[in-house]
């Protein structure tokens, strides 16, 4: 379906796809060309929607990599940040996105390849420690199982936010993954770029305490066995209609 453009905001809001798109954006979903109808609607209605969402204290961000997302800049719309585990997995997926090896299969990778990427960059011990941070002693087998479960949990969360698609044991990498590479994309120093992104509200810096708290939240049962169906929404939102996209630190409650 092609749209001929929107004369005014009312036309956008009356579009059949707008309600679902609006809800998805407000839940943190990143929209790219794969979301054909939504992407087209955003492209056609961008000039109307930017001021519209600004009234809610949000910026409708468009990246030249080809994706949109909503970034809250005030407390009118609830805002969260990704957990340390999600960030590790997101950056590993971004690395895979940049790897020509993924090109051969049209941007599809497996969970095994993702974990192998994490191991290649972090090392096995660091990876296991990252996902079992509170444990001083751990059984290797159980810790590995926990790490795999936490990675899978992070992938599900990132999929709900539109960073990847999950299909038949494969992950399809999407352009929004390049958001994880934003601090190192430009020619400026990463610290400087990071400061700029913090000022824009794109990222938050993680203190040691926050990292420990986030990791503690990610910690599963006391015996280290991962939950069969890990609860994604760790932010206290228990509504059954939730899409499972929570799981992080809610900044404004």
């Amino acid at each position, binding site marked *: 379906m092609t749209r001929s453009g929107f004369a005014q905001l009312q036309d956008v809001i009356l579009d059949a796809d707008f309600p679902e798109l609006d*809800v998805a*954006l*407000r*839940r*943190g979903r990143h929209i790219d*060309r794969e979301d054909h109808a939504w992407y087209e609607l955003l492209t056609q209605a961008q000039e109307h929607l930017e001021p519209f969402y600004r009234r809610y204290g*949000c910026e409708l961000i468009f990246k030249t*990599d*080809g994706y949109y*997302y*909503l*970034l*809250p800049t005030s407390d009118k*719309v*609830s*805002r*969260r*940040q*990704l*957990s340390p585990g999600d*960030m590790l997995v*997101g*950056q590993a997926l971004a*690395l895979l996105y940049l790897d*020509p*090896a993924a*090109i*051969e299969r*049209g*941007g599809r990778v497996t969970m095994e390849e993702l974990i192998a990427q994490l191991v290649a*960059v*972090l090392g096995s011990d*660091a990876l296991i420690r990252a996902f079992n941070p509170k444990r001083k002693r751990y059984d290797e087998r159980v810790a590995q199982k926990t790490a795999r479960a936490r990675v899978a949990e992070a992938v599900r969360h990132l999929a709900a*936010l539109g960073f990847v698609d999950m299909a038949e044991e494969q992950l399809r990498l999407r*352009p929004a993954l*390049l*958001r*994880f*590479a934003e*601090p*190192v*994309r430009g020619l400026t120093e990463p610290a400087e770029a*990071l400061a700029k992104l*913090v000022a824009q*509200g*794109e*990222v*938050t*810096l*993680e203190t040691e305490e926050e*990292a420990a708290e986030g990791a503690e939240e990610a910690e599963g049962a006391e015996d280290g066995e991962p939950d069969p169906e890990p609860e994604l929404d760790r932010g206290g939102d228990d*509504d059954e*209609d*939730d*899409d499972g*996209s*929570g799981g*992080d*630190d809610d*900044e404004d409650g």
Partner: protein
Amino acid sequence: MAVVAERRLAIELGTVDVCFLVALYVRAEGANLTSFTEAQLEDVFAQASAVAQPGVDQVRRRATLAIQRLRDQRMLARVDGQGVVRTGEFALSRLATGIVEFFLEEDVLTRESLVLLTGSLRAAIASVLDAARAASGPDAWQGGVTGPLRVTVSELIAGIERRQRGLDLQQESFQAEIRKLLEADWFGAIERCQALLESTSATLRELNEVLLHDSSLLLALLHDIEELAVAAGEAEAEAAAHRLIDQVDRIAAWGSARQRAWSEYFQYVHRYLRDVVRLDPTRALTQRLREQLAGGGQRFALAYASTPPLRILRATPVVRERPPVVRPHAPRDREPAPDAGEDPQVALDAKVLRSLDGGARALSAVTTEVTAELPGPERFVEAGRVAGTVARLARATAERERPWVAVGEELEIEDWKLARAAGGAGGAGGIGGVGGGAA
């Protein structure tokens, strides 16, 4: 499958074996040979061995073993039938030819080969249609329609399908080549990658156009043949036409499916080249991102909108409070209370006396009369009480052998003869008076 498993069929070919088969195939094609002598086989093996395993010794012995391996696996067949009389002649089997053709990848679908094949197919089916129109008997249908459909037309369609699989493999190798090009020469590979993408896209587009156009013509012809077969009651011809219709449908579906899949891949790679390769010509981003992930620098977290879904309050039904299930509390021991009811023994005495007064002179007669209105089970109990009462109010005499007399339909009792008791019982003065004299 059961037959394959039972016969333990297996194929084991090493690189040198495959090279040997390819060399034989090429030699046969080049020299127009239909079979090889043993000397020729050894000669060809020596050439293949020089390529696949240069520097090895005992080539002749290895040739003997390789020939035996291929014969055991039905790749080579002796065709002269002379046995021990003279040295044999050998030919490649269909299995060996198929394997070699697969590895040589000769059958890749191109626009030229597809146009040629579909043209031949159309002509073949048209002639079959003419034969079907003219067919007047089962033999004509078998020879002019069913046979050609099963062999000629089916082979042509299989040829298209085989080439389709060849093109699939070629696409896979293109995808791998694009990856290798980028890995080898990141920014410099853009032009070659785009050229590969464009050429494959153009090929697929052309093939799909030909398939869309020609498949509809082929299907129309096959449907005509099928209708004629149905009208003539030729089930075999109908089945053959139907099977070919399915095959043509599959060929057409392949074209659109491959074009769709390639289009998706094409767009992905184009975006990759534009957004990743062109914007990062030195491939520094990967390295910097790797360092970031490895823990270099300040840790950060991406922010995102997270509006919770609207809470819709459910209408809750009013729950009726149900009392807990308990046993009734009643005192086990009841206080005695005066009962103004009739003494059952007094009533029974009265009934027995009335019966005796009425002339009953046997226990059975009294029991029958007194218990007449009672149900069966109570009657048995009451009969005992009647006997006791009778014994008290009358004088019973019994013979040594007392007879069993039926009382109603369900009860028998030992009968007594009764006489009036002397003086009677207390409270039954009338009877007592009557019986006194008898005693």
